């Protein structure tokens, strides 16, 4: 190529007119800018999901598998028969799939952060929270998919929620909110851990006690006293109880309030922690 062989000479320094650096610099990111940057990041995440549909594997297969599995295995032992166990186990599986889904949020964030594009995100004058919050907004889609599928499988197996359509919808909404809030724990983990594998490993150790040491699958009265005490304060128990109240009774009980409060506390603690360690990293 001719241009390679005979490159255009550099314009002599005294003939250049430097770009005027004078521009209005804003001292910080406004809330409005933060929201629009977060939405731009969410747009990026949905594009990514469309190109890697296997990201939906955990939120499609797991609800199908676990709902059926738990219902048929534990149904007879715990509630006498499968049909009467469904109102107990469906909210439990909902909470469990939401937790698994938000665990993946942390793992994927960690993977993403190793890529060169995160360098650019850091060098841009954008809110430090946007690269973290963006994927989490997009992940609302995943939580919703998981919740709707779980309920659908339940309905197919004979689950007839007493709370009716609105109660069921409210239960699904609460699951999505809880998933989104708890995801901040895993997002924070994603910003502190060294590798995606370690995020996965640590997340597993958090997720299993949280789901199984709760009232998700068994009535708490069967547990020894010390364990019952833990189960009572476990936020997952509150979410499960709240979802049960909404779906089975159609009632907005105190449990719903506790669940929402728990979620708010988790976000208030872990979102700033995550942003802090993200902006310090590297």
């Amino acid at each position, binding site marked *: 190529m001719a241009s390679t062989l005979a490159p255009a000479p550099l314009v002599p320094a005294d003939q250049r007119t430097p770009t005027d650096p004078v521009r209005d610099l804003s001292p910080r990111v406004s809330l409005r800018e933060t929201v629009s940057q977060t939405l731009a990041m969410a747009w990026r995440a949905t594009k990514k999901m469309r190109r890697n549909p296997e990201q939906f594997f955990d939120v499609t297969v797991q609800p199908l598998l676990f709902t059926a599995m738990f219902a048929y295995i534990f149904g007879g032992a715990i509630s006498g028969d499968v049909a009467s166990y469904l109102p107990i186990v469906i909210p439990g599986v909902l909470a469990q799939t939401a937790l698994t889904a938000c665990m993946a949020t942390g793992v994927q964030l960690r993977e993403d952060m190793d890529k060169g*594009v995160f360098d650019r995100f850091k060098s841009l004058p954008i809110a430090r929270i946007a690269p973290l919050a963006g994927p989490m907004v997009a992940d609302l889609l995943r939580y919703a998919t998981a919740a709707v599928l779980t309920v659908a499988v339940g309905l197919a197996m004979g689950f007839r929620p007493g709370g009716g359509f609105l109660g069921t919808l409210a239960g699904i909404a609460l699951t999505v909110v809880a998933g989104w809030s708890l995801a901040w724990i895993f997002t924070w983990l994603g910003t502190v851990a060294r590798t995606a594998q370690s995020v996965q490993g640590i997340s597993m150790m958090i997720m299993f006690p949280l789901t199984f040491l709760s009232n998700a699958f068994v009535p708490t009265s069967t547990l020894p006293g010390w364990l019952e005490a833990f189960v009572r304060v476990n936020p997952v128990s509150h979410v499960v109880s709240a979802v049960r109240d909404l779906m089975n009774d159609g009632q907005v009980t105190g449990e719903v309030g506790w669940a929402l409060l728990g979620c708010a506390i988790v976000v208030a603690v872990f979102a700033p922690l995550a942003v802090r360690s993200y902006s310090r990293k590297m």
Partner: protein
Amino acid sequence: MKPGGVRLGDMDDTTALPLPARHPDRAGPAVSAHGLVKTFGGLRAVDGIDLEVRRGEVFGVLGPNGAGKTTMLRMLATLLPIDGGRAEIFGVDVASRAHEVRQLVGVTGQYASVDENLTARENLRLFGRLQGLPSRRAKATATELLGSFGLEEAADRTIAQFSGGMRRRLDLAASLITRPPLIFLDEPTTGLDPRTRGQMWDTIRALVADGCTVLLTTQYLDEADQLADRIAVIDHGRTVAEGTPDELKSSVGTTTLQLRLTDRDRVDDAADVVRRLLGEEPVRTPESGGLNVALADADRAGDVLIALREAELSVASVSVAKPTLDEVFLALTGRPTDADAETDASDDTPRDRPDHPTQEAS
């Protein structure tokens, strides 16, 4: 987000400062750094670098791998915290006003920092949206940049299918969305084939003609020579020389004569001959039997060969080349660029590599 005072928008601490001037300095240098330091554990990757880049110029930072070039650039670009010293971009302090500095600098990294999962167009749209362009403007800017970087045809392919050169170009395009007055280019052509390299150089020249100030790092002397108005040579985190390309080159001669002797044991004799003839110390190459001789004038190559012939030193191969970074380094620092140079500096014997025993046999 959560109410209650935690400013999630930007955790960089700008609140404690006196009210910052809304405009950067109109007349001062584009970049000014004093005594920059970065330590990683015990290693001082950047060890007190001073730097001043004038507005509108192309400033080249030349140095071998691990000299601290990238670390320095990352500190100036707010990607790494500064451990010591001060830096200002158009008079705006880098450490305390990172958010404002980010509005003034476009960064193009050594490894293309674009999103592999998106197409070229989507990448540019995303970066435009993130920097506050309205949706339609972001689209238009993306199309415009794709055109001027010759990427229209590949615009809707994902980056995973891009060649190295295309990625670099897209990366540079992404840095130009808001037309920042200062561009950092970290080894813009490392790993590119010569043709793509030439295209990249042309693109950088066009940027400069447009009035951008450019700070670039490179391992290649010819790249710095082609592009930069002024060059700083850095090694082990320190500046070892600074000047125009001509000044640097005159310190190492314009041409290098590369010799390899048939009889490897007579390298010292050959070095003596060269020293007597030219009054300069030749450089021994890492493989035994090799000598590099800096020449102020390519015509002197013949004189050297004749002198060797007269001394009955037989030459296995001869070539004439432009000075390499190694020679610039030797001329400037008195030792080669290798990391193990200190231990070998006093040792005059040609260095055989103990980790490559096969080389000795050959």
